[in-house]
């Protein structure tokens, strides 16, 4: 029998669970745990410079690897600093376990130094949370935390650990629990066969079908199955922002992504469809636009692992509760030997779609002229070429995020890492750092803006200490571009606080941390700067590119309109 202190149990459990990296920041209530981590060398701890970055780095790692991220913070401000990152992971259903130190049990509720009721604070933004009440519970509670975080619809789990639970003097038996026992939690493992059959029959008879798939296909590791299914049927497919890469975007059946800034052909196809096959997507307001005008002629098949996602905003005609991978595989086997009933109608449908594609070909944006400041879209396209579309790409939030999603083409899942649900500025750089530290041989690009970057730029110091050859592409328009765009459209161009006065000299700033920074002012300088940026995959490089501040993101759905109601440029609309 092995007797361990609570702190040592945590360190041992993390080893036994196969956790490679923890992102964290020490403090009083977490010190016993930090001491236990110090006395082992299997689990690597990355010391961030702000707890929010710890959660984003763990989140980036989770999104790229599919495995849960792990965060360790202290009580009070350590835990509250992590809140934005926990909410980010919650909104995008990302598996994460956040271990929070807490003041000693007997002090809880007394407004002790660095005390916060973090379980209470995070309650609406976690999948579940635990408070440790006895050291002997630690292995079982941690097992439950990892199990809950990574199964069903994934999400963040908070574990609150009062300091006395980890006291080095109190030792209890440690056994690594192989399984978590939870009587009230049994995620579905397969969909209802009758419903799946019904869906397949509708798919075979559909005249204007479209697949609409989301992050659930990526987290559910169902991309291969989805690609197979869509290729077999020959249907068009659009994905959500979170679902990008689940089906290769270079394939002719891909219409790109949909919604507020989605492609013209995606939104048009959705509006005119007679059958929408939604898989692992949640019909959120950035996709549907006005619910009452949403896709008036479409029947809806909705596959999701979370029953509460189904018919939450748009009523499903055929609801299927189940994991994307197993439902898709069942659909494929039901399709064996079956023929599409109305292949002529499908051919006509493709003609309409190709027509929409043709309407916008070459009109997406106006490239810069020689000697002029670059358009942000051009920069994204150039980076996509320079990395052969193979990089892990993270973004912050705003115009650059939408441009990155529109103009970088992804053929693989888990490659586009963005805060889709919460829209967290500051996410991109620490997320990229988390990915790069775990996949050092891969190219990792962070598209950011000078607004977002300044929210988490302290992590340059973390990269200096632990390495992290991230390529930061700063699309610098000296404005909060998306805010400015809305002010142009809705507030007669009154740019209330969307202009970033007094920007730092980024070159000096980056160099102060010992990294390379490059500056691009005109289109002529871009190619050679990109060559230098990507020359050494291990080196962090900050590429500061001046871009046109007047550029808007289009298409843009008209508020309260249908999917097809879009502004296409500053002068055109549907």
């Amino acid at each position, binding site marked *: 029998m092995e007797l361990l202190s609570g702190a040592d149990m945590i360190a041992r459990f993390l080893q036994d669970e196969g956790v490679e990296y923890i992102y964290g920041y020490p403090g009083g209530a977490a010190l016993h745990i930090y001491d236990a981590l110090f006395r082992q060398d299997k689990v690597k701890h990355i010391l961030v410079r702000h707890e929010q970055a710890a959660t984003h780095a763990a989140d980036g790692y989770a999104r790229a690897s599919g495995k849960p991220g792990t965060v360790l913070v202290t009580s009070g401000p350590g835990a509250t600093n992590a809140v934005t990152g926990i909410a980010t992971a919650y909104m995008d259903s990302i598996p994460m376990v956040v271990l929070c130190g807490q003041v000693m049990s007997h002090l809880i509720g007394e407004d002790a130094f660095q005390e916060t009721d973090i379980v209470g604070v995070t309650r609406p933004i976690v999948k579940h949370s635990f408070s440790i009440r006895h050291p002997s519970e630690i292995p079982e509670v941690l097992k439950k935390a990892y199990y809950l975080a990574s199964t069903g619809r994934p999400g963040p789990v908070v574990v609150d650990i009062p300091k006395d639970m980890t006291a080095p003097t109190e030792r209890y038996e440690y056994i690594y629990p192989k399984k978590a026992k939870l*009587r*009230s939690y049994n995620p579905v493992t397969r969909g209802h066969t009758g419903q799946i059959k019904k869906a397949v029959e509708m798919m075979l008879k559909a005249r204007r079908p479209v697949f609409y798939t989301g992050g659930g296909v990526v987290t559910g590791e169902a991309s291969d199955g989805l690609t197979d299914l869509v290729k077999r049927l020959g249907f068009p497919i659009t994905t959500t922002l979170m679902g990008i890469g689940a089906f290769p975007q270079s394939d002719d059946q891909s219409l790109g992504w949909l919604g507020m800034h989605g492609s013209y052909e995606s939104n048009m196809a959705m509006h005119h469809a007679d059958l929408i096959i939604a898989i692992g997507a949640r019909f959120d307001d950035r996709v549907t636009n006005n619910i009452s005008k949403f896709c008036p002629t479409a029947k809806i098949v909705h596959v999701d692992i979370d029953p509460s996602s189904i018919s*939450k905003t748009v009523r499903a005609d055929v609801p299927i509760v189940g994991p994307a991978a197993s439902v898709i595989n069942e659909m494929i086997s039901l399709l064996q030997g079956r023929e599409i009933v109305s292949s002529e109608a499908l051919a006509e449908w493709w003609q309409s779609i190709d027509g929409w594609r043709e309407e916008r070909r070459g009109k997406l944006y106006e490239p810069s002229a020689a000697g002029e400041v670059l358009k942000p879209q051009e920069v994204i396209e150039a980076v996509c070429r320079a990395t052969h579309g193979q990089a892990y790409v993270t973004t912050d939030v705003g115009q650059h995020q939408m441009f990155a999603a529109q103009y970088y083409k992804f053929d693989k899942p888990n490659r586009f890492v963005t805060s889709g649900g919460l829209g967290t500025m500051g996410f991109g750089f620490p997320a990229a750092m988390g990915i790069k530290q775990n996949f050092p041989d891969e190219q990792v690009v962070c598209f950011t803006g000078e607004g977002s970057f300044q929210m988490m730029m302290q992590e340059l110091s973390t990269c200096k200490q632990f390495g992290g050859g991230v390529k930061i592409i700063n699309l610098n328009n000296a404005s909060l571009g998306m805010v400015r765009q809305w002010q142009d459209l809705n507030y007669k161009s009154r740019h209330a606080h969307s202009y970033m006065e007094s920007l730092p000299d980024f070159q000096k700033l980056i160099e102060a941390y010992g990294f390379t920074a490059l500056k691009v002012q005109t289109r002529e300088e871009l190619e050679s700067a990109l060559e230098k940026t990507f020359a050494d995959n291990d080196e962090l490089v900050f590429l500061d590119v001046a871009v046109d501040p007047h550029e808007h993101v289009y298409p843009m759905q008209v508020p309260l309109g249908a999917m097809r109601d879009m502004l296409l440029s500053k002068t055109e609309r549907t």
Partner: protein
Amino acid sequence: MRHIISILMENEPGALSRVVGLFSQRNFNIETLNVAPTEDETLSRLTVTTVGDDRVIEQITKHLNKLIDVVKLVDLTEGSHIERELMLVKVKALGAARDEVKRTVDIFRAQIVDVTPSQYTVQITGDAGKLDAFLEAMSPVGLLEVARTGVSGIARGDKVLSL
């Protein structure tokens, strides 16, 4: 429409706040709430009455089921059921009104459980409508204090909410 949802949940600290928090977080409404441990000490039974159309009620039950602490739930209003609430009321009982209060208590099959020279304390059980009617009948006399438990309920017949 009004629904009565009964929940078996883990008898753990924090479980109740998760259920209640869900209602405010998702903009659902709670009319009454009633909770106590069951004969199995690891479980609590919570009964909530709420109002909403079918879409809202579907979302409420789905989100409640998603909570890890919720083990099982039933919407009692989907079938025939028994609904009861207990209320304690202090009313003025002076002069001629004293007899009138006693008569009304008898009509409602309530009980007087405490007496002072100027007041009666009345205990009454029934569905929410009956309790409302009693309060209305008593209000001219003078209500001093009202304590209601909130609705509890159970399905009629063989149906059982248990593990």
